């Protein structure tokens, strides 16, 4: 066994988690390699030292009062939450939520200029009763809707009535 392998396995060795074959190989290596043996012993002593420095636990009476204090707190109105567990957060959820949020933001605040109302390019055909006539004759022709004041939704109907010489506006 190489020293590097030995040192990497020291924690498992001390935990008693090293498998039998590895443990045997480590024992053999420690017997032959002073450096690794010292390393192992230092790790072992550190663990013992930490345990010896563990704070002294309080007396048993303390824990009796601990429980009764906790009960008092609960009696004063603490209740466990009844909230249903949330679904576990997974990366796929994150991407889906992110994409949905992005679509929503784009829909509300589009980065491209919104389409301004302009002259309609669709031909419209109207039958309009002449306001100054008796209402029996008709004007027919191709008209367009032009915004009277851009952006405000008011339109004038522009078009040339049959038989007239220029555009007429209504």
């Amino acid at each position, binding site marked *: 066994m190489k020293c590097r392998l030995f040192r990497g396995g020291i*924690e498992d060795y001390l*935990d*008693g*988690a090293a498998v039998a074959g590895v443990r045997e190989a480590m*024992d*053999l290596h*420690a*017997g*032959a390699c002073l450096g690794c*043996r*010292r390393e192992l*012993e*230092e*790790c072992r*002593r*550190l*663990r013992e*030292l*930490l*345990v*010896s*420095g*563990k*704070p*002294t*636990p*309080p*007396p048993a009476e*303390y*824990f009796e009062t*601990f*429980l009764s*204090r*906790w*009960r008092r*707190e*609960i009696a004063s109105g*603490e*209740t*466990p*939450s*009844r*909230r*249903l*567990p*949330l679904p*576990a957060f997974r990366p796929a959820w994150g991407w889906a939520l992110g994409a949905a949020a992005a679509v929503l933001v784009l829909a509300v605040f589009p980065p491209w200029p919104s389409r301004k109302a302009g002259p309609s390019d669709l031909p419209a055909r109207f039958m309009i009763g002449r306001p100054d006539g008796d209402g029996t004759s008709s004007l027919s022709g191709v008209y367009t809707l032009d915004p009277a004041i851009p952006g405000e939704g008011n339109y004038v109907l522009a078009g040339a009535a049959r038989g007239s010489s220029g555009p007429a506006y209504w």
Partner: protein
Amino acid sequence: MNATPPEGSKSADDDFVLVRAAQAGDADSFGRLVAKYQRKIYSLAQSMTGNHNDADDLAQEVFLKAYRSLGRFRFKSQFYTWLYRIAINTVITRRKQWRRHPHVEFNPDWEEHGVSPYLPDSLKTSAPGEDLSRRESRDSLRERIQGALGSLSEKHRAVVVMHDLEGMSHGEIASALGCSEGTARSRLHYAHRHLRRKLKDMLGEQEDEMPSFPRRD
């Protein structure tokens, strides 16, 4: 491991029964869980903070938080690892608050100089009849060790406390900290290396105490 938490699968099943009852509104069931784990949570808090008053405060807070959050326990981990996770998060949060607003119980120099001077004497003298020099020596040893532990980050200290003092396995630590087992191992390795440097003079060679290993012929 030399010691394991008192969790077999039967014990874990018992915990789940109690948790379900508590979730249905039976506070006494949760009281039994408190009685079962209060020592472990207190011990964890005491090892993390280094003094009794803060540990007491934190342990109470941990159980209250756990009770309030019980509806979010999804039975996907052991109850006690879930409890440990709450405990570690509570300790980390509270210590950050204490750093910003030091309170009378917390010794701001603790991280460098050892346990809190406010530790009640009754907790320093656990062995009746212990002579003064022996007690001083033990207190001094404890202060050195607590000081070395205090020089670690909370996450590294938590791993050492759970592994070396509470006897938890790497898998249990990983579950309690919400990290991978590899991360738990790596943190432990780093923390041990750091502690060995800090306590070098206390880990001196003792050839006469070296265990005998079989030699290859």
